């Protein structure tokens, strides 16, 4: 009987849309900063005000981006799904989470060490440029979506 083969982090990343267009050796290089992690429902991946040491790529499950309001309680701003990235504060100073990140169900992620990735980007500017371009695209999409959300189009 064949042994079950576990996919490496690099294998998982290569299958994700976010890493489309990034060469294999670069993905391999980045994957050195990542580990597989699992979070139970209700477990926090990051909390507002904490140092943003990590970001996450969701493999399975769902993460909520939340904010606590003294009157309204906890407000869910956005849900993040498989293939998407949670936590972008690692990329720019002061590297602090602005929102809570919570697992809304059993969630498997690849957790990246933000400092490790930043160091690699400093050493290899073409990697830095590629990653920044990817993250800028994602941030621009999220900004657009937030603006549409604020329009309250269904009202």
């Amino acid at each position, binding site marked *: 009987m064949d042994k079950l083969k576990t996919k490496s982090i690099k294998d998982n990343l290569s299958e994700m849309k976010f890493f489309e267009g990034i060469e294999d050796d670069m993905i391999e290089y980045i994957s050195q900063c990542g580990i597989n992690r699992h979070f139970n429902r209700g477990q926090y991946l990051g909390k507002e005000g904490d140092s943003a040491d990590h970001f996450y790529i969701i493999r399975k499950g769902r993460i909520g981006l939340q904010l606590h309001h003294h009157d309204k309680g906890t407000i869910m701003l956005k849900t993040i799904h498989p*293939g998407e990235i949670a936590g972008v504060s690692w990329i720019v100073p002061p590297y602090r989470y602005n929102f809570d990140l919570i697992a809304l169900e059993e969630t498997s992620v690849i957790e990246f060490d933000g400092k490790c990735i930043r160091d690699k980007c400093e050493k290899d500017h073409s990697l830095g440029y590629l990653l920044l371009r990817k993250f800028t695209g994602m941030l621009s999409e999220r900004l657009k979506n937030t603006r549409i959300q604020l329009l309250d189009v*269904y009202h």
Partner: protein
Amino acid sequence: MYTIETKEKNFKTLKNPWIPIIYRVKEKFQENELNITFILEPDSDKCIPEMKPGQFNMLYAFGLGEIPISVSSLEYEHPYLCHTIQGVGAISNYCYKLKIGDRIGVRGPFGTSWPVDMAEGKDVIIIAGGVGLAPLRPLIEILGNERFKYKRVNVLYGSRDPHSILFHTDVISWQSDPLINFQVTVDHCQKGWRGNVGVVTSLLNLASFNPAETVAYLCGPEVMMRFSAYALLDAGIDPSNIYLSMERNMKCAIGQCGHCQWGSNFVCKDGAVFNYRQIQKELSIKEL
């Protein structure tokens, strides 16, 4: 198919588009704070012709005027009509307050319908926003009833908040249907909501489809439809495989009065369901 017990009748279909036919409220369902669904039955032996998904009727509130309302289900046998109304203006508020047994005038059916045949053998993406789910519900019903004709069926529904979600029973049933990938998201949520939060286009990541073999149907606020169309195009879907249901100030419903003229189209007659290629230019003109 829902059936309502009534006396057997041979209904005469009237084809004069100017004369309203009187219908009676047979049943009503409160969908949420703002929306009500009515089942209408003919008040006499006269009825309008059978409707297709995506078509609309002009509902006539006596002494007030008419409003165009899409058919929101075809699961009720002809000649019954199903309409979902949001009470936002004088006429729609009048309709909203109708009681069982009250009468209303109906002209129709008008406009183009969702081209269901185009999706045969292909993947389907339906994107609904707010009350835009109502005109799409007959299409979802047809796809569900003839599921074997289509490949993967994705329904992405965006709502303002959990309280604004329409057709709760259907939504729950679609969500639990293994043959439909039904996803809901809300723009804003209250405590206790365990579903998705974010704009409806963000649900596209959860849809499974082959862009080269996908037909998409959109209905909702125009801003939402524009951005949904861009997202579908970015995903590689051919513009000729995208259909949208537009809304303009429809009055006569037969392309005579010009109230709903939109570029070279009359929304009431040439639409309300359009192919994206047909209206791509008009969508980008702010003054229209």
